[in-house]
């Protein structure tokens, strides 16, 4: 029989069921009548004949049921009926249903929320045309950025890509001067939008014609993102053609990109995109690596084919773009490592590297919470099932098979969990956005595309069905294992339920306690780790320090150097400022400067290494309250151009001077022209965080130059002023801004506080700690409810036994202990099992912890004590009722 006709008969059955049912009924009735008629002809009285005929057919309903089972689509139909039956049953006990669905919605919602984040960060493809053909160009294992000359060479000579794009991230300042108003910008090649397949929402997008050398003089143009257009311009159509000021230069707005396009890097959307050629200070520099390349593979081409093509081109690119003044020692390493291509369908993202582990941990956590919640629901269904044994027994006697009944009970469970899933998705929609916002900081807004996609829906549905099967299977097996006669006899005698039904609940509770212990232990570890980071000594004191990143437009000049010095003096003279300093970067700053040095006495070639640098004004350590261990701070009386003095930190001394006091010693620093410059160490300070709170790295501090040292003097581009105020920081901001403007009205300023930087740098740890505490507590509450439920059920079940004991003179305390003995046993089993699982799983998160070991005694102690206390309390409340059992009522009811 063909599939088509099979489908047709299935459809007919589903659509015209009523007619088909009627025909079946008529057919069977006619059988009975024909059979009865024959019996009457043989002399049997009509009444008797009819009864015999029905008996012969074995029951009209059972015969019909047999036929239905054999129909195509019969199974589907039966499950449909199971669904309707389940809905009717739940409609009858709305309170129970509401509670179960609510619990499930929370559990499944938490899972769906974390999964949406994982999906957005780890799994989603870029919002571009055919993302699977996109590859990213790298040099060697790590380098991802290249110079504009390299871009031109590859773009003009490559034959292995269908097309290519180049782009670079950059913040643009919308404000002409004063406090900065930064927006997220992109420098892009003219091919960017067309190759990625992005349509304009208004106006037009960039074309290769907009990206030509010299475009910064003639007609600078810009494209807005849809979100920026909406928020900044209210989506007004006359925006097109208007000018926009970016970093002090005027651009004409050409158009707006489509709403669903947010960029090619997860976590980072863009506001404004301008052609790469407008970066006229960089396009001729072979030294500046700033552009990232994406290529689109030709149809049918493999990554390795394109990669070998690119490598063939590499010598020519190298030859054509070699920077002319590069010292020979560095020239031989220039573009030496082979080009590599990486699939870029998901886009590259530092966010992904940063958050994948945390998200997986959270996924495991919410998974466990859901398991614990399933345990409670299984317990509830188990209790309900024993109340329904009569219904089930009746159905068995009417010919339902055990398989059929198990299916019915599982369908009921799945109906519950699907309803929970639907509510869960709604919860997830709200909470995942909330969670993503928690990860954004003042300086780093994180954008995640959290719209529903098939992965989230499929995941939630799968979790829902799995959960339903998990919590449904035990009650389903339990309640269908007796023969109807046994059950009917048992229930009709109103005796106690079979012993085993409580047994299943017992191990469920033990597992719940074990899982809760794992979660509470994990939460304790994350909390302690976060606490060490947030309150530990990082070599500076963050409270009451205002940070002002100030820059002046244009190349370094003596006037700029003087402006910074004058501002420094003016700020220190402000009322309410206790001390101030300015430096190239600050702890947890955005800038990292490194340099190659060699040290040792006498200077030894192989005692060299990379260190991090900062250029600081006098008073920097006093302002940040970084202790000076030996030697002295820089001083205004130092030679104004003394760039041969340095202050180093503890790690520096450990690495290059065996931990001895390095004051008075010397090292050599490599200059950009490859010569070595001798440096004298005048001070020795405690380690203070450089770019993160976690690591200790060698740092050398040099004095900020007080005059310009020529065009290579990048450090004059801008400085961060650290200002320690005597009280609140916010109140000082207007005075500070006024002071800067008073010295030079062209200052661009961006203002925050050191405290914010500390908080921003541990936002991930804070989220992990908060969420693990939240879910740990939730697990604890759920497990406690489960335990309390089990104990009160067992007290009611053992009422006759307790009554007899009470009648025989047992004291109330001993009766409570009788019940509590069980609780203690279950708790102990759970704690033992949980400790084993906990110590194994803790190893997985060891790398995420700061100054806390995975067998941290306090965390272990806190977790076990919390669990034991909560479990005993949850057991004690219902156990107390055992003491109040009245032997007389109890024995009478037997």
């Amino acid at each position, binding site marked *: *029989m063909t599939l088509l*006709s099979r489908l047709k*008969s299935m459809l007919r059955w589903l659509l015209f069921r009523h007619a088909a049912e009627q*025909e*079946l009924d*008529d*057919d*069977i009735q*006619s*059988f009975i*009548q*024909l*059979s009865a*008629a*024959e019996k009457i002809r043989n002399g049997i009285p009509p009444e008797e004949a009819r009864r015999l005929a029905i008996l*012969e*057919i*074995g029951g009209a309903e*059972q*015969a*019909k049921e*047999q*036929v239905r*089972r*054999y*129909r*195509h689509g019969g199974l589907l139909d039966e499950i449909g009926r199971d669904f309707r039956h389940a809905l009717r049953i739940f409609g009858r006990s709305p309170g129970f249903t509401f509670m179960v669905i609510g619990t499930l919605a929370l559990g499944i919602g938490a899972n769906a929320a974390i999964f949406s984040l994982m999906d957005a960060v780890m799994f989603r493809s870029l919002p571009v045309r055919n993302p699977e053909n996109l590859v990213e160009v790298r040099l060697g294992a790590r380098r991802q950025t290249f110079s504009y000359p390299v871009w031109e060479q590859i773009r003009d000579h490559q034959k292995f890509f269908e097309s290519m794009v180049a782009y670079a991230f950059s913040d643009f300042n919308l404000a002409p001067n004063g406090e900065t108003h930064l927006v997220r910008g992109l420098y892009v090649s003219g091919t960017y939008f067309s190759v990625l397949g992005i349509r304009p929402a208004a106006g037009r997008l960039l074309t290769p014609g907009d990206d030509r050398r010299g475009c910064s003089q003639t007609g600078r143009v810009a494209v807005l993102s849809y979100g920026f257009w909406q928020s900044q311009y209210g989506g007004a159509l006359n925006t097109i053609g208007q000018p926009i000021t970016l970093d002090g230069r005027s651009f004409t707005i050409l158009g707006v990109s489509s709403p669903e396009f947010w960029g090619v890097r997860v976590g980072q959307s863009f506001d404004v995109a301008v052609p790469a050629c407008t970066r006229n200070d960089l396009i001729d520099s072979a030294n500046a690596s700033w552009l990232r390349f994406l290529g689109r593979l030709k149809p049918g081409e493999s990554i390795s084919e394109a990669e070998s093509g690119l490598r063939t081109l590499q010598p020519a690119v190298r030859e054509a773009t070699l920077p002319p003044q590069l010292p020979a020692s560095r020239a031989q390493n220039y573009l030496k490592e082979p080009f590599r291509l990486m699939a870029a369908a998901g886009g590259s993202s530092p966010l992904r590297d940063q958050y994948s582990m945390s998200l997986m941990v959270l996924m495991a956590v919410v998974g466990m919470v859901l398991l614990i919640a399933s345990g409670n629901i299984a317990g509830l269904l188990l209790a309900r099932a024993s109340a329904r044994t009569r219904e089930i027994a009746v159905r068995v006697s009417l010919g339902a098979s055990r398989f059929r009944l198990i299916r019915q009970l599982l369908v009921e469970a799945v109906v519950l969990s699907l309803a929970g899933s639907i509510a869960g998705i709604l919860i997830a929609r709200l909470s995942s956005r909330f969670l993503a916002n928690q990860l954004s900081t003042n300086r780093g807004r994180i954008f995640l595309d959290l719209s529903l996609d098939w992965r989230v829906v499929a995941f939630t549905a799968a979790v829902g069905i799995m959960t339903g099967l998990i919590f449904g299977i035990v009650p389903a097996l339990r309640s269908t294992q007796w023969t109807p006669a046994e059950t009917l006899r048992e229930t009709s005698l109103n005796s106690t339920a079979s012993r085993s039904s409580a047994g299943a609940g017992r191990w469920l509770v033990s597992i719940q306690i074990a899982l809760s212990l794992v979660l509470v232990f994990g939460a304790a570890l994350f909390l302690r780790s976060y606490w060490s980071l947030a309150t530990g000594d990082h070599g500076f004191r963050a409270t009451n320090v205002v940070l002002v990143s100030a820059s002046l437009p244009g190349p370094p000049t003596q006037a700029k150097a003087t402006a910074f010095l004058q501002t420094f003096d003016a700020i220190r003279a402000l009322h309410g400022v206790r001390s101030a300093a300015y430096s190239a970067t600050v702890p947890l700053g955005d800038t990292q400067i490194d340099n190659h040095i060699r040290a040792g006495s006498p200077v030894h070639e192989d005692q060299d290494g990379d260190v991090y640098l900062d250029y600081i004004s006098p008073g920097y350590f006093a302002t940040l309250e970084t202790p000076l261990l030996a030697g002295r701070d820089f001083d205004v009386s130092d030679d104004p151009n003394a760039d041969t003095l340095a202050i180093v930190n503890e790690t520096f001394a450990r690495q290059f001077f065996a931990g001895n006091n390095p004051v008075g010693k010397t090292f050599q620093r490599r200059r950009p022209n490859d010569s070595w410059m001798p440096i004298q160490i005048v001070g020795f300070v405690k380690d203070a965080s450089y770019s993160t709170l976690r690591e200790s790295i060698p740092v050398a501090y040099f004095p900020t130059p007080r005059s310009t040292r020529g065009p290579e003097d990048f450090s004059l581009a801008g400085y961060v002023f650290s200002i320690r105020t005597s009280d609140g920081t916010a109140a000082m901001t207007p005075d500070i801004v006024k002071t800067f403007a008073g010295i030079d009205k062209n200052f661009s300023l961006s203002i925050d506080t050191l405290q914010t930087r500390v908080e921003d740098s541990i936002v991930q740890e804070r989220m992990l700690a908060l969420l693990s505490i939240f879910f740990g507590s939730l697990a604890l509450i759920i497990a406690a409810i489960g335990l309390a439920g089990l104990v009160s059920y067992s007290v009611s079940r053992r009422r006759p036994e307790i009554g007899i004991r009470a009648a025989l003179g047992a004291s109330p305390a001993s009766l409570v202990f009788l019940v509590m003995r069980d609780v203690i046993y279950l708790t102990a089993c759970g704690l033992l099992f949980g400790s084993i699982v906990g110590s194994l799983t803790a190893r997985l998160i060891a790398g995420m912890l700061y100054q806390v070991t995975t067998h941290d005694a306090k965390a272990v102690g806190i977790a076990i004590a919390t669990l034991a206390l909560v479990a005993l309390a949850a057991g004690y409340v219902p156990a107390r009722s055992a003491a109040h059992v009245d032997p007389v009522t109890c024995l009478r009811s037997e």
Partner: protein
Amino acid sequence: MDRLDVPQGTLELMILTILSREPLHGYGISQKLAELSRDTFQVNPGSLFPALYRLEQDGKLKAEWRPSENNRNAKYYKLTSSGKKQLQEQKQRWDRIAFAIASVLEGA
């Protein structure tokens, strides 16, 4: 002698054989089966109806409602051409089985 249940897997063959002579209703088929098997086989309606509906669904049988001998409407089943083909095939298969079983029994 007690009646026997129809051997597993042969009910369809018997139904098709009976219907190849004349169209019959369900009760008629069960009576005919008893008569032809000299009261050896009895078919339970719980098995007969599913078999009939399955054959009808698969297009081996066609049914029509018409008055029966007691002037009430009954569902008469009739072989289709596809049903006739099926009967041929099953009959040949059965002949081979019967022959094989007989050979084994005689040879032993």
